[in-house]
């Protein structure tokens, strides 16, 4: 199980700010595949993924209870 937080545009597109995925995910790449299948309308290539509040790469492993964030292009300032 991992907890997913969504922000900005992505939050509106998935329709919730926080949800859980019960399926086992090996790494960030497998999470991306899962999300692309579930939400094909989102352009995932422009969405960064953070694991436990750090920007993550595709090969980074996921663990039970990780806090994942879906980060669309940032626009602070």
């Amino acid at each position, binding site marked *: 199980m991992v907890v997913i*937080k969504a*922000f*900005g*545009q992505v*939050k*509106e597109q998935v329709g919730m700010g926080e949800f859980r995925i019960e399926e086992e995910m090996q790494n960030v790449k497998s999470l991306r595949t899962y999300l692309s299948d579930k939400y094909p309308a989102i352009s995932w290539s422009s969405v960064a993924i*953070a694991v436990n*509040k*750090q*920007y993550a790469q595709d090969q980074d492993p996921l663990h039970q209870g990780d806090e994942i*964030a879906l*980060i*669309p*292009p*940032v*626009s*602070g*300032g």
Partner: protein
Amino acid sequence: MVKIVDTIDLNKLYKDLVHPAAGGLCLFVGTVRDNTESKEVTDLFFETYDEMAILEMEKIRQEAIEKWKLEKVIMVHAIGKKSVGEPVVVVGVSSAHRKEAFPACQFLIDELKKTVPIWKKEYFTDNSHWVSPTP
């Protein structure tokens, strides 16, 4: 000091930056502009991933401290709905001389815009949309 706040108090931030060894303070204040690409903007709404935004701002702050000789460094971003003219972000440094202060201040705001998980939504008279960063 890095912070996410509801409302920016410029007087307070000025006091936070003052330091006896500093002869110069440089602050950048980002405010709500009333237009974008010739469309009238009424308000901006800011959302953050608070805990991560603080971590990312702290990384930038530390990088600035390593690059320049600075006395104080602050980065503050506001959240929620802000109207035209209101401050939404302040970055600032104090240093012995202006030579360090100007580039350090520019570095802080440029880096903040690249990596810190904060998003803004523009409200127009007829609709609204999430902003994509300026290329």
